[in-house]
């Protein structure tokens, strides 16, 4: 990969008619980083992320993900990234095993590879007992872990997590972040959006979007120093208030 950046964004803009949702943002994400993409509701995070994962067309500006241009090669991007949606989108009326097999299949994994991955997941997450249970019957914490693992089935170089810890208790959130750390240690780049500011502390670097622009981009430590804040929550409040 050239110059070690998994994501390169330059003046990326998205307008809906007169309204500018994403206003000329620029940043890079290095390989192996845990990058936190923060911002209040309505700041433009989701719109920006949609462009990076290939389902939104930019109005202007450039962005490259995994060395592919989002405007010209969104299909190639999709093959090389993992995605975990906010709703942990798994099929409730399919079993755990069937969900794994399905998603493995649409990412082009061979039958043998799917079987291998499935055994790995069973060992790692202790899925042995619930392989043949319908996903709908699983508690939220399990769905979350399963959703994350499925996003990584095809060993993508970067995985996009959209508010992955919504509605989940603090202990489960902590366990989930341990899964994220493990993945990052294995070399996967993590791009995560969240509005839990304490989770911002877990990231290598963090960007904060306010009204379509990136108002801050640095490590949590540096941001706290710069804004004389005790924690990321305070940093955010100071920024959002303007």
């Amino acid at each position, binding site marked *: 990969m050239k110059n070690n950046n998994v994501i390169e964004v330059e003046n990326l803009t998205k307008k809906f008619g007169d309204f500018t949702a994403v206003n000329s943002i620029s940043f890079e994400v290095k390989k192996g980083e845990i990058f936190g993409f923060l911002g209040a509701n309505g700041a433009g995070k989701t719109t920006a992320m949609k462009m990076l994962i*290939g*389902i939104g067309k930019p109005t202007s500006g450039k962005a490259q993900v995994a060395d592919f241009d989002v405007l010209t090669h969104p299909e190639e991007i999709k093959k090389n990234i993992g*995605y975990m949606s906010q709703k942990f989108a*798994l*099929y409730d009326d399919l079993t755990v095993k069937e969900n794994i097999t399905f*998603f493995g299949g649409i*990412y082009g994994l061979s039958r043998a590879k799917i079987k291998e991955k499935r055994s790995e997941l069973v060992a790692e997450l202790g899925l042995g007992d619930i392989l043949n249970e319908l996903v709908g019957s699983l508690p939220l914490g399990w769905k979350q872990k399963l959703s994350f693992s499925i996003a990584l089935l095809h060993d993508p170089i970067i995985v996009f997590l959209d508010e992955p810890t919504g509605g989940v208790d603090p202990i489960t959130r902590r366990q989930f972040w341990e899964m994220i750390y493990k993945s990052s240690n294995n070399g996967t780049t993590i791009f995560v959006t969240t509005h839990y500011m304490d989770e911002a502390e877990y990231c290598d670097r963090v960007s904060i979007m306010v009204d379509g622009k990136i108002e801050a981009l640095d490590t949590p430590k540096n941001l706290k120093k710069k804004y004389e804040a005790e924690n990321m929550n305070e940093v955010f409040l100071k920024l959002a208030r303007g």
Partner: protein
Amino acid sequence: MKRFIGFIKKEFYHIFRDKRSLFILFGMPVAQILLFGFAITNEINNVDIAIFDKSNDVTTQEIIHKISASKYFSIKQNITNEADIETVFQKGKVHAVLVFENDFKKNLTKDNSAKVHIITDATDPNTANSITNYISAIIGSYRKEINKDISIEYQIDTKTRMVYNPELKSVFMFVPGVMTIILMLVSAMMTSISITREKELGTMEVLLVSPLKPFQVIVGKVIPYIFLSIINAIVIVLLSIFVFEMPIQGSLFLLALESVFFIITSLSLGILISTISATQQTAMMISLMGLMLPTILLSGFIFPISSMPFPLQVISNIIPAKWFILILKGIMLKGVGLFFIWKETLILIGMTLFFIALSVKKYKIRLE
């Protein structure tokens, strides 16, 4: 008491601010009364008939004039040879053919009796009955008129024949209609529900981010319903042949081909509905109220289109089911080949392409 009134006030706010409930409360009843009032009719109005006048004399002209003057019938065509009778029925242009024998007036004055032959298309047995009765009544009343000042009465013998459905079995009318409704239900409604379900659950987004191309997602969703619809169609045809003893006069292959065309038309409608529905409930409502109900009322399934007021007749043209029922009746009951139903087939194909193009356009707009 005040708390209670406060609560009722809130309920009124809900109702008036929700466009959907306003539509159901006021729009739907009005639409339905109008629809039901005008569409549901067992009367006949302006029915197209053809005349085969072998005599062309004063008497036949008087009878023909009396018939065309009535609001019940409209003389569409004048036939000049025997073979045309079959053709004009196959083409579906007229509901009945009136045949006057040779030397009508001469026979009447000489032998005091002349013959009229009423041949009616009985693929719709109820209308056929009405048509035959009304024509007979008009001829009967003409006979009374000319018999007023004469001692020996003139007889006008009316011989009636029902073609395509001599026993006037109503199942002949229902089977094409039911088959159409079921194919449309399975294909359009189930497809639209299936696609909107993915949207509602959020899994559609995951599919869109995956390497699967959007058209693969749509086609993949649609294929199981094609299979199921084909099986449904086969079951219905088998049941009608063996349980209801309905004949399939035409080619089974053509029947299968046209059914597949219609299934695809319904599927494309289902896809279109899914692009304008955010939830499964919306999709179901649109399918039932916007598709099923008008289809049942205006497709000619139960109530003859020709008897409806003109605006409704025009609307019936945009309902795909209307064209497919014509095709089904043509193949099953009249045994026609592609030559007679090419127009209807082309219309179905055109509608399909239109729905697909519209769906693609809506989908692209959303991506922007």
